[in-house]
């Protein structure tokens, strides 16, 4: 979609600022791989903190594994394990497309 995505180094924390191809995790389709850029505190600071403790830290690569039959929740592969989040929580995690 954007060429900027491909230029962004995974793990570069500044990418969140530079890159306009940033998308919330909730918008990604199954099979997509993306690098976390930031976790917003829009929901609540406690939720943001928990998402980080679950492994959604800036620089981490997340893969969308599958959606539930009614499209929500969604299973993600992050830090070598699978965890499912509802759309509301996944919307707090911003990502850019990951290479490979």
């Amino acid at each position, binding site marked *: 979609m954007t060429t900027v995505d491909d230029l962004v180094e995974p793990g570069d924390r500044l990418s969140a600022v530079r890159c306009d191809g940033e998308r919330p995790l909730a918008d990604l389709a199954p099979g997509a791989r993306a690098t976390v850029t930031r976790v917003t505190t829009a*929901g*609540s600071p*406690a*939720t943001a*903190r*928990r*998402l*980080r*403790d*679950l*492994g959604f*830290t*800036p*620089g*981490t690569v997340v893969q969308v594994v*599958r*959606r*539930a*039959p*009614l*499209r*929500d*929740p969604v*299973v993600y*592969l*992050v*830090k*070598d*394990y*699978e*965890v*499912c*989040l*509802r759309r*509301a*929580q996944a919307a707090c995690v911003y990502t850019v497309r990951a290479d490979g």
Partner: protein
Amino acid sequence: MSADCHDTGDSGTGAVLTDVPRVALVGSPNAGKTSVFNSLTGLKAKTGNYPGVTVARFVGTFRVGGRGYVVEDLPGTYSLEPISPDEQITVDVLDGRLENVPRPDALLVVVDATTLRRSLGFVAQVLARGLPTCVVVTFTDELTRRQGHLDVEALGQALGVPVLPVVGHRGHGIGELRERLAEWRSWPRPVLPPPADPDESDAWAESVLAFAGYRSAERHRVTQRVDAVLLHPVLGTAVFFVVMLLFFQTVFTLAAPLQGYVEAFFGWLSGLVAAHVHVAWLSGLLGDAVIGGVGGVLVFVPQIVLLFLLIALLEGVGYMSRAAFLMDRVMARAGLEGRAFVALLSSFACAIPGIMATRTLPSANDRVATMMAAPLMTCSARLPVYVLLIGLLVDPSVKVGPFGAQGLVMFGMYLLGAVSAMLAAWAFKRLGDRRGLVMPFYMEMPPYRLPAPRSVLVAMWDSSRSFIRKCSTIIMVTTVGLWLLLNLPLQSAAQMRAAGVDPGDATAVSSYVVDHSYAADLGRLVAPVFDPLGFDWRVNVGVLSAQSARETFVATLGQVAAAEDPEHPAQVLRSMTYPDGPRAGQRVFTAPTIAALLVYFAYALQCMATVGIMRRETGTWKWPAVAFTYLTATAWVMAYLARTITTMLGG
């Protein structure tokens, strides 16, 4: 380095020397914490509640080197930044801020080797607490099998604390862990504490993993393949319904005959009493009240044990999180989450395992809301009552299309229960959320694992034992109390003859005794309350007796109506009429009354075992009282509505 290490102990914990050292287990929910806890303590664990909250507490003991130790299995958590009351408990215990729960002397952090990349952040948070800490790495066998690698020794060097591999379900490493625990005072502490800043935590974790030669496990191929089917939008849903169907089929087909044996055995016992004890009241008290009470507890056991076995199996394999994943969207409509589905589903068999299954819910609000809803699901004890009443209400030959009308009404009762339960859960969730924070939803999907038979059996045994221990008293007291109400005051043969009853006619005697009992007085006393529903005092006695267990209603009503066979009183009830009052001579069991009774049984909390288990799970009398009050009030209102509507329809 021996158990006797008074000299090597650090200062500041001197007071503890005389006490028993306390060790706490911390870790994330699927890390194998409970398995380590069970291996350490055997079956000597005690379950209870933390003061004032609905969080179960597990404490056990073990001995090594001639010294006793207390182990506490803290609620599983992914973080020490609490977002729920349960997690607050874990943090408060670690910081020694909880009343009557002493701060632990040493900590065991249990981490799953296959999720080490995520878990190290949690380890860092625990190490920051500054308590003597040992890291227990589980599932190292699985890591190797999935082509991963970890140098446990090097991990210990990198973290600066003891690290031990333990394969909990096989018991590997438990001996070493016990010996290590004996030396807790001399455990090394980290030279440099891990970074507190979460932004630096990742870099620290990666450097630790690199030092320990960590290679992640390959994705579990079996899990990927099985999930492709079990979580498939169409296939997965179909499999889910088949699994649930089998679940109930097993419970009903296997438990029903076992329950029959239990009933038959206690029937035989009370028969023995009747044959050998010739004092009528003593024989009744022993045979019907005491033996009946014990039987009343034990008759639940086959079903409960079986339910817990199946729940433990599905949980151990990893299917429960899949079922919760599939059902989350549906449950979200009631404000709950997928995991509550399992609890509500079990309640179709019996509310007790359903209420105990709420332990898996991370949010306290969800737990209470689910517990308040569980008694509304149509449990198997309601079935005999529904069968009797529907038999009176609907002619078996009436058909609606290809379906028998009786079956449709029965289906309607199940539907009524399920819909009401969802509405109740929604209402209680709304009320609860107004007071507390709404928790975000997240759920780990562990790989499919073959559960160790031992841990499945321990889970089953634990739940069954706590049911028997906590509920037997309340069921016994209710049964004996109700027996006394139904049989006192004592009637002598002379009194009966004077009233024109032949003391040799057992049916007439039991009918006479009940008609002149305190229960009958009570039934007449509450008559004004139930009169608008069309219940006469004899129905009230039946409803009252159902308080210990719903199915008692059938036999008591049979007794009151002086049926030849109290277990099948339909014939007598059909022709039962009001003996006095404005409706004297009219039939009691008219369609509006039966409809009201059916609906009353659908809502009322007529199960003291459920009340007992709510008390146990929440740790206070508040929630059972709330449940009892709201369910009884709803039962009355809904029964009144049912009566009014049936009357209007021309019943």
